[in-house]
Each structure stands twice: as C-alpha cells, then as structure tokens.
C-alpha cells in the first residue's frame, strides 16, 4: 500500500472530530438504553420458560424463536417501515409525524427486544443448570415458588451467566451499528461518512475499530471484577470470555 496517502490529522479537524465523538456517544447510548429494555424483559421471559405454567412457557418460547430466527436487519426494517403502517391510524400518525428521534428510538426498541431473546436464553440456561434438588429444598422449607426463584434460584443463576451476559451486552453494543441502516449516525456510520468525505478510509475505520475494541476491553475487565466480587466462597469463577 505504498501509494496510500496517510492523513491522520484530518480526524482532529472540524467537523470530523465532532462526528466521531457524537457517533461514539450515540453508539454507547443506544447500547445502554437497549440493554435496559433487554435485561429486565429477557429475565422475565427466561423465568417464564422455566415455570410450571404451560401458557407462560409457550409465550416465552414463541418470543425467543421469533426474535432469534429473523435477521436483525430485517427486524430493524420491520420496526421502522412496517409496524407504523400496521398500528391503529392515530398511533401510526403519531409515530410517523410527532415521535421525537424516530430512528434513534426505533433502533433502541428493535435492539432491546432482539437482545431480550438472547438474555432470556441465558437466564433460562442458568436456571436450568441449578439442580432440581435446590428447588425442592426451597419448597420443603415452606418458601413459595416465587420466593424460591427470588432467594434460591435466581441469585445463583445470574452468577453462573455473568460471562454470557457480558457477551450479550457486547453483542448489543456491536449490533448498534445496524442502526445506521435506518439513518442513525452512530460510530460506524460516522466513520463511513468521514471516509466518503475525506477518502481517509484507513484512519476513519481504524479509529472506529479502536473505540469498539476499547469499550469491549473495558467491559470485559469490569465484568471480571463483578464476577470476582460476587463469587461464592469456595467455588471457582468461570471467567468472562
């Protein structure tokens, strides 16, 4: 690549520096907001799939199967182009005309609901990894099934799945790049835009890549700390990926 003309300083020039900062901010914001939908919703669905109640289990299974078997990009288009058409007219109008930040909020919703299906699977597998005898022991001492979840099964299940939840969070962080397809100016799209304006492709993409790697590294280190702190004495931590 001898003929390539390096131009790193351009990234610090106006307006490109600002583009990267705002893109990075949007990426982080989308990830955090989507996660705050995905974690509680996914937990509820994962729990639903382990209960004795058939209808609840069925609803949970359908949710997970639907969301994980449709490409995320197709889901993004469904939420953005299709759902407003199918809503009752008044709502549809509101979504199309008056809803603030439509692209941003749509991508948060889409990523949140999709990631919930992944979280649900982790929570379910964590709960299923706990021996049935634990459930019996809780019931035998008079706890209600809900109390058994609250005090016995969930505290252990969440500890088991810290590493997989970490990679799911990183998943939503990376997947936030799909928001660019409906016009959200997040990190990847800003890098692309800089490339188109300045032809400094390598510099722009490298910067974006570096930022993604940095966040990934920080999150993994932080979650290792969480895992260490919550480790049950006498057992061995599994270690985030």
């Amino acid at each position, binding site marked *: *690549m001898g*003929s*390539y003309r390096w131009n790193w300083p351009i990234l610090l020039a106006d307006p490109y520096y600002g583009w990267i900062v705002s893109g990075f901010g949007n990426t982080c914001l989308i990830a955090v907001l989507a996660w705050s939908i995905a974690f509680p919703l996914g937990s509820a669905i994962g729990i639903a799939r382990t209960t004795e109640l058939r209808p609840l289990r069925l609803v949970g299974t359908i949710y997970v*199967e*639907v969301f*994980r*078997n*449709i*490409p*995320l*990009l*197709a*889901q993004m*288009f*469904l939420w953005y*182009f*299709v759902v407003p*058409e*199918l809503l009752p007219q008044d709502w549809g109008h509101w979504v199309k005309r008056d809803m603030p930040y439509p692209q941003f909020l749509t991508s948060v919703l889409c990523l949140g609901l999709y990631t919930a299906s992944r979280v649900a699977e982790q929570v379910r597998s964590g709960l299923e990894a706990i021996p049935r005898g634990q459930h019996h022991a809780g019931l035998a001492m008079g706890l209600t099934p809900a109390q058994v979840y609250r005090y016995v099964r969930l505290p252990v299940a969440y500890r088991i799945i810290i590493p997989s939840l970490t990679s799911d969070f*990183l998943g939503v962080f*990376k*997947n*936030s*790049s*799909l928001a*660019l*397809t409906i016009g959200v100016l997040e990190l*990847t799209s800003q*890098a*692309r835009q800089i*490339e188109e304006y300045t032809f400094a*492709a*390598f510099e722009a*993409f490298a910067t*974006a*890549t570096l930022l*993604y*790697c940095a966040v*990934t*590294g920080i999150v993994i280190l932080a979650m290792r700390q969480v895992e260490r702190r919550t480790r049950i004495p006498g057992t061995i931590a599994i270690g985030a990926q």
Partner: protein
Amino acid sequence: MGGGFDFAVLIRNAPFLWGGMVLTLQLTALAVTGGLALGLVLAVLRLSRIPFAPALVAGYVNFLRSMPLILAIFWFYTLIPKLTGQSVSSFYSVLIAFILFEAAYYSEIIRAGISSVRRGQIAAALALGLSNAQAMRYVVLPQAIRNMIPVLLTQSIVMLQDTSLVYVVGLRDFLTTADIVAGRDSRPVELYMFVALTFLVVCFSASRLVNRLRRRYAL
C-alpha cells in the same frame, strides 16, 4: 400506499427475489466452508505449542470479536481494492470479510469442543498404551465433534442471518432485492414481512433439526 395488502407484488417479482435468495445461499455456503476451514486451522494453532501461535490466534479472535460485522464489511469493501490496486467485485470482498470474521467464532467453538473432553479421558487412553495421536483420533475427537457439531450448525444459522448485512454495500442478496422491490413498488409492508417470514421458517426449521441432532447424538 394504496390501502390493503397486495401480495401479488411478491409473485410479480418472484424471479428477482429468487435471484437474491440464491446469492444469500451461495454467500452462506462459501462463508461457512471457508470459515470452518480457517477456524479449524486457528483452533489447532491456538491449542498447539508453536511459539507465539496461541497468543497470536487469541489476539486475532478477540480483535475480530470486538468489532461489529458491518464495520468489518466496510473495512474489506473499501480496503481490498486499495490494497490490491484493482477493483474486486463486492461479492468477493464481502466473502473475505465473512470468512475472516466467522473463522474467529468457529475457531472458538472448535477449541471449546476439544477442551470440553475431560483430561481423564486422555489419561485413560494413554494408560491403555495408545499414542498421543491415537488418543486424539479415537478418544478425544469423536467426543469433541459430537459436542461441537450442534454449536457449529447453530452458528451457521446465525451466519445465514448475518449475510443480510451485505445490504450496507448494496450487494443484491435476499433482503436487498426485497428492499429494492419495496422501494420501487411502494410495498414495504408486504416485502419486509415476506423476508422476515421466509427467514423465520427457514431458520426455525433448521434450528429444530439441529436440536434433534443434538438429542440423538448427545453423550
């Protein structure tokens, strides 16, 4: 948009959409094959005692896994022509991105499959007088493969869905052709629902099949 659904639009454009589906399937097949081959090499290197190889592979895997696939697609789409000095069709630049990207995921699955075989099994095999290679061939790999095949297949279903991301470079896969028709005929509802349902049926059936395999061959 002229009220009501018009599913005839799907029939009118069937050949065009089918062409997109063919490209999606080709891309998936080639990327899975290439990704598996490279992933196997990476996994073996990672478990080997060749100096620096395990660390280098770990670095490669962690690097690619921290990056969004879309960004990887942009990297290769933009840089391969610059690096090679000639224009490469977007199909090949995307294919290379997918192979390099998926290989990182496959290699981890293969490595986990091999590591999942308990050490006691190797000890028992060696104690019977089997050589290292024989222990690998007759004891470790048969168990490892059974453990990893369902996961590899599941990852390949994910890969099939991920190919839709070629949309960002305008390659005409299934989703992109549907998107083109949706725009041209102003029928986004029908087209995007059709794409979603098609993937849902295909991927759901495939994952059912994987589950059945997993249950039948579970150790």
